[in-house]
């Protein structure tokens, strides 16, 4: 027999959630805008118009790759019920060491790039690994340890920058990375779609990396034994343990993977934009990553979409200042969207569960007639 496929909600149902959520968010912000005397319609139009310019799109994508990696890192841990608040510290310390390593060695192109990426992933993994070890060894909640390690990372970075890596630099940064350690730009891609980019605006190569990693992570999560075991361990650690999935090992591996992905979050900026790590290196992506992961329901595709949404909103916010509209409205919008998406999702989920329950009752499988008591 070929059993019926998953009782999905179909395309209209899938679209209902974001549509509903967006509607709520737009209504709330419209009310706020009206309250300060700005025209909501005009504001939205301006944002849309500006946000859809080719260079805006490219900028939104560039920004979203950072959030994507950060979100992915959070999500992988979440699958195992681990809350990695420490992506922030992990990606910053990873970026610092990657920058230092990249500047210190001289290798031919792709190899150089690979080394820098590996250093970043390794550093992120090690930093997250501290929390994993504390958790498996002493039962320290990873929520706490990763949070505290963020502050420790800040101190360590400041120290390393000041005393080791940038001790004699005027700018207080690591030396600039040579071209061989930089990510290529993908300007051909927008050109392919006929989007002209102004001088100096580039689509970063990290976007391609994000796609690759997204696919790989998706594949690992859904198509490998590790992904399966991860999911089960997250849902029921006791059962997983009884079936030979060692929870400590899973926690360790998962935090390492999460930290490794977090390590990548600093690279789009480092290898495609600043080329060096200094005091002015952009921060905060780790926290945004949490929101992005939660909004994206911990799946790579969802995270990609929510990262793009965040990137788009932040980019469009720029134009509001020019128009004299308080751009904090965009931050509010982000918060409202996160809440309304989960609320909308919950509502739809409840409806769906009721449907599944009905299916279980009605769609009895063919051979399942009442078991006649087999004579002993």
């Amino acid at each position, binding site marked *: 027999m070929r059993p019926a496929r998953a009782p999905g909600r179909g395309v209209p149902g899938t679209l209902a959630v974001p549509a509903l959520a967006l509607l709520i968010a737009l209504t709330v912000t419209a009310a706020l805008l009206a309250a300060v005397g700005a025209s909501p319609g005009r504001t939205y139009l301006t944002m849309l118009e500006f946000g859809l310019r080719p260079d805006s799109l490219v900028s939104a994508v560039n920004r979203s790759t950072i959030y994507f990696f950060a979100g992915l890192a959070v999500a992988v841990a979440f699958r195992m019920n681990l809350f990695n608040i420490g992506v922030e510290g992990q990606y910053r310390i990873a970026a610092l060491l990657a920058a230092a390593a990249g500047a210190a060695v001289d290798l031919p192109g792709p190899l150089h790039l690979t080394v820098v990426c590996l250093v970043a992933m390794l550093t992120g993994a090690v930093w997250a690994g501290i929390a994993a070890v*504390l958790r498996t060894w002493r*039962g*320290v909640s990873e*929520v706490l340890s990763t949070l505290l390690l963020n*502050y420790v990372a800040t101190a360590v970075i400041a120290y390393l920058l000041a005393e080791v890596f940038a001790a004699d630099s005027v700018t207080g940064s690591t030396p600039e990375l040579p071209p061989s350690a930089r990510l290529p730009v993908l300007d051909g891609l927008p050109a392919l779609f006929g989007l002209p980019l102004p001088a100096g605006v580039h689509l970063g190569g990290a976007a391609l990396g994000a796609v690759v990693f997204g696919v790989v992570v998706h594949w690992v999560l859904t198509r490998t034994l590790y992904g399966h075991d991860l999911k089960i361990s997250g849902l029921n650690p006791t059962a997983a343990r009884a079936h030979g999935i060692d929870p400590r090992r899973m926690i360790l591996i998962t935090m390492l993977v999460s930290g490794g992905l977090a390590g990548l979050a600093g690279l789009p900026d480092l290898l495609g934009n600043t080329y060096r790590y200094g005091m002015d290196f952009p921060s905060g992506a780790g926290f945004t990553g949490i*929101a992005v992961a939660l909004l994206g329901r911990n799946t790579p595709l969802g995270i990609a979409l929510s990262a793009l949404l965040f990137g788009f909103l932040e980019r469009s916010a720029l134009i509001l200042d020019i128009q004299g509209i*308080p751009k*904090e409205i965009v931050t509010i919008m982000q*918060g409202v969207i996160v809440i309304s998406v989960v609320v909308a999702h*919950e509502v739809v989920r409840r409806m769906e569960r009721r449907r599944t329950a009905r299916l279980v009752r009605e769609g009895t499988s063919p051979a399942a007639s009442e078991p006649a008591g087999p004579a002993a």
Partner: protein
Amino acid sequence: MSATIPRLPRLPRLPRRRWSRWARRPRVWVPAAVVVLLAMSAIRTFGGTEALTGSGVVSTALRLAVPIGLAGLSGLWSERAGVANLGIEGMMIIGTVCGAWAGYTHGVWAGVLAGVLGGVAAGLLHAVVTVTFGVDQAVCGIAINILAVGVARFLSVIAFSDLPGAGATQSPPVKGVIGTVSVPLLAGGWGTPDILGQLEQSRWFLISDVSGILRGLLHEVSWFTLLAVALILGSVLVLWHTAFGLRLRSAGEHPAAADSLGVRVHLMRYCGVLVSGGLAGLAGAYLVTVSSNVYREGQTGGRGFIGLAAMIFGNWRPTGTAGGALLFGYADALQLRQAAAMHTLLLLAAVLLWTAAIVVLRRRPRLAAALALLGAIALAVFQTTDSIPTQLIYATPYLTTLLVLVTIAQRLRMPAYVGIPYRRGDS
């Protein structure tokens, strides 16, 4: 039915749970405190540095601990009712804006009240989304943090940017101040002699230190601090000694059981989250009325999260939370006031780590080895350097917390149903 089975003898009384006895037993905490005190005193006497136990450091620690403790208490009320609250930071931010605005227009106590109300409003949002809609509590908390940053900016632009001495990110000063009290006789209140102060000056071994610590806690204490202490004790009383408290906790321990006994789980959770919001708002109000007298963007500085850490540290109990907040406040105070003493502190750390190692040696040899190793590292660093880089001093409070957690984490127990939405019939 096997009718032949005879009745078993009465069941033996079970021993109480070990960890709670451990935590409550004075036999463990008192020696620990004495060891710490002795070590500190010795370092002051022989190390030649300024006192780690001076009343100035202690009172600074107390002042820095109050917002953290209130944030922790906020988390405690929410989590005891079964709702994780990661939005404390955001609720505090709302508390600071509202508090500063009302404090400017109507005086300082109005500011306190407005801070609480602002926090309650944010708590209400959290309650509606997590309790009524049953949405993932972590998501909502994080969203509230994002939202609060935007809302605070939005409000401060509207409320403050045109006022004299204020701007888009800063409020005008709050009107009036919240006074302080000193305990008479002991700490020189009401013009009486300051006995502890004199003892502290004496520089006698141990006596001077104890006096310093006590004076720090009794001299010029803000009324707001007293309010916070009252709230800690009040929380113990309400949550553990009233019917309401039992019901509220039952909503966090086993909502289905509570429901089946007629407890209104959703109502209890609403109460917990609203009180949580109010306390977070209060913590924010403290920042704009006592810590300083203005609202500044970014003023909360992650204290909402540190409060959560203090709560977990304190095993979801008010007194423990207060202890965690004090520890944190103390480490922060040292970092701000006595950065130079941090180097000496390495020596203290080494002594304490070795003491801990000896204590756990028989039960947990591997932990003992790790602690001893850390102690040796601390000593080695102490020997080979003569100051700690300022950048690293910044990490002290956080490292201290981590270190203490490593020792006590396994005794912690959170309410069983935190984070799990309750709907009747969900099993």
